[in-house]
């Protein structure tokens, strides 16, 4: 199910100079904000939860997920170089699964690690807040990577759709329309984080079991469907 060559090609494409800069920008911003907050207002659990929940989990993780998830396959399909993967005796679901693993790993490294660092800076993991949001970021990384990888296989405008989902649906609708929160990766991840942190600082609108089921279903479903799409992918540039 996992092909090391596909993984190597995907890593190199994803961590190419320009994309790595974009991937690195938000985590650096998060850590800078956290350092500034800590300096000016001291260690405060509520502030820590606000920064990690409002910026790290609600904004940074989905954006990193969009870049890594769509970037793991979208550009190859766009420019046609995916033909070199498709013209090999390698199962299409293997290609998708491998790219998913790479996208998850990259999303985790660029979102969960800085979340942990930022949490430690903000309040030194008081009330397990840093740990809770790190777990949330890890969990969300999996679902986002799978969702946005699928987007990358079905549309050429994957980045735009991904950003619309991440910013408009999750951030805006999620905060305005209660129902939208049930269908939000962020809320599912928060449900898991709530379990880790306990208390009222980390809360979710979704119960833990529902969240876990939905996370698993979305990840598995998106990955399966992306594999199917790749099996019948029409290469661009045809007459």
């Amino acid at each position: 199910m996992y092909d090391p060559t596909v993984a190597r090609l995907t890593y190199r494409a994803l961590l190419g100079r320009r994309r790595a800069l974009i991937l690195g920008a938000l985590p650096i911003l998060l850590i800078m904000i956290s350092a500034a907050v800590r300096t000016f207002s001291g260690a405060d659990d509520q502030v820590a939860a606000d920064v990690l929940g409002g910026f790290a989990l609600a904004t940074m993780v989905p954006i990193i997920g969009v870049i890594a998830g769509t970037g793991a396959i979208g550009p190859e399909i766009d420019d046609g170089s995916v033909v070199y993967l498709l013209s090999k005796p390698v199962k299409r679901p293997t290609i998708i699964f491998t790219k998913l693993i790479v996208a998850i790993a990259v999303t985790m490294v660029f979102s969960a690690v800085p979340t942990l660092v930022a949490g430690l800076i903000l309040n030194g993991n008081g009330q397990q807040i840093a740990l809770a949001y790190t777990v949330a970021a890890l969990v969300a990384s999996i679902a986002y990577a799978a969702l946005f990888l699928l987007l990358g296989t079905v549309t050429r405008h994957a980045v735009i759709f991904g950003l619309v989902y991440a910013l408009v649906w999750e951030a805006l609708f999620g905060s305005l329309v209660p129902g939208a929160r049930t269908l939000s990766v962020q809320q599912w991840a928060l449900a898991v984080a709530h379990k880790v942190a306990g208390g009222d600082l980390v809360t979710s609108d979704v119960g833990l079991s529902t969240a876990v089921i939905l996370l698993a279903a979305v990840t598995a479903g998106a990955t399966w469907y992306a594999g199917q799409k790749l099996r019948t992918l029409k290469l661009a540039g045809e007459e």
Partner: protein
Amino acid sequence: MTTLNIDHVSRWFGNVVAVNDITMTIGPGVTGLLGPNGAGKSTLINMMGGFLAPSTGSVTLDGKPVWRNEQIYRHIGIVPEREAMYDFLTGREFVVANAELHGLGKKAAQKALATVEMEYAQDRKISTYSKGMRQRVKMASALVHDPSLLLLDEPFNGMDPRQRMQLMDLLRRMGDEGRTVLFSSHILEEVEQLAAHIEVIVAGRHAASGDFRRIRRLMTDRPHRYLVRSSDDRALASALIADPSTAGIEVDLAEGALRIQAVDFGRFTALLPQVARDHGIRLLTVSPSDESLESVFSYLVAA
């Protein structure tokens, strides 16, 4: 011996029919797929390579379906027309990756790089390669698993004459080794130099098939049309029509010229200046009016 069978294959995109009921068999040796731009060659090659499902009909390689069959790529090498190819890798890294995806190692990659004579630049990034170098590395990636069928989409596009000759030698060698090699081109001379067998596609249809010389003869023996202006059009017309090489002459008053249809190309081109000199007529314009490849092809479709 590998044979690619295309059986009553059609492909349409919405209302547009790109490939229309084509049946052909591609056997060992070099075959040229000839047709003007937009004729449906790429669509057909994509179906041959398993990247596009036929709307109707089937494509099989030695009896096995090509579409949705990843294992078929053990026998097929593909050189796509598009340029994109992991530009951030070096040539060697690219070919090694292609070998690994076939379950092969560095040795196979090195052999393929040697075959296309790219070892000298193998450690440079692909982004620094010229068009011809890219084409050769693409070839190496297609040859790495020693395939019995090689599909190349417009492989000579943008190559300089020297690169073109090198690639032609290579493809000829592949054909002589008993591989089935199919390449597409819209340039008659390319196909003429390389392929003994050709398949002609025009407007999505299979226009002609077979030995190149026979098709070439069809092309040269077709009625040629000329537009001729002279100091005395009518005198020239009456002198020319007496010869069997001319099938018809129209005096185009609006253009102030003769429209001549010649049936024997060689004889007519010798006759015209001779007749003019004998009758003291000055030729002002002699221009073939249907020499475009498209008109050659459409003649073939009608033939």
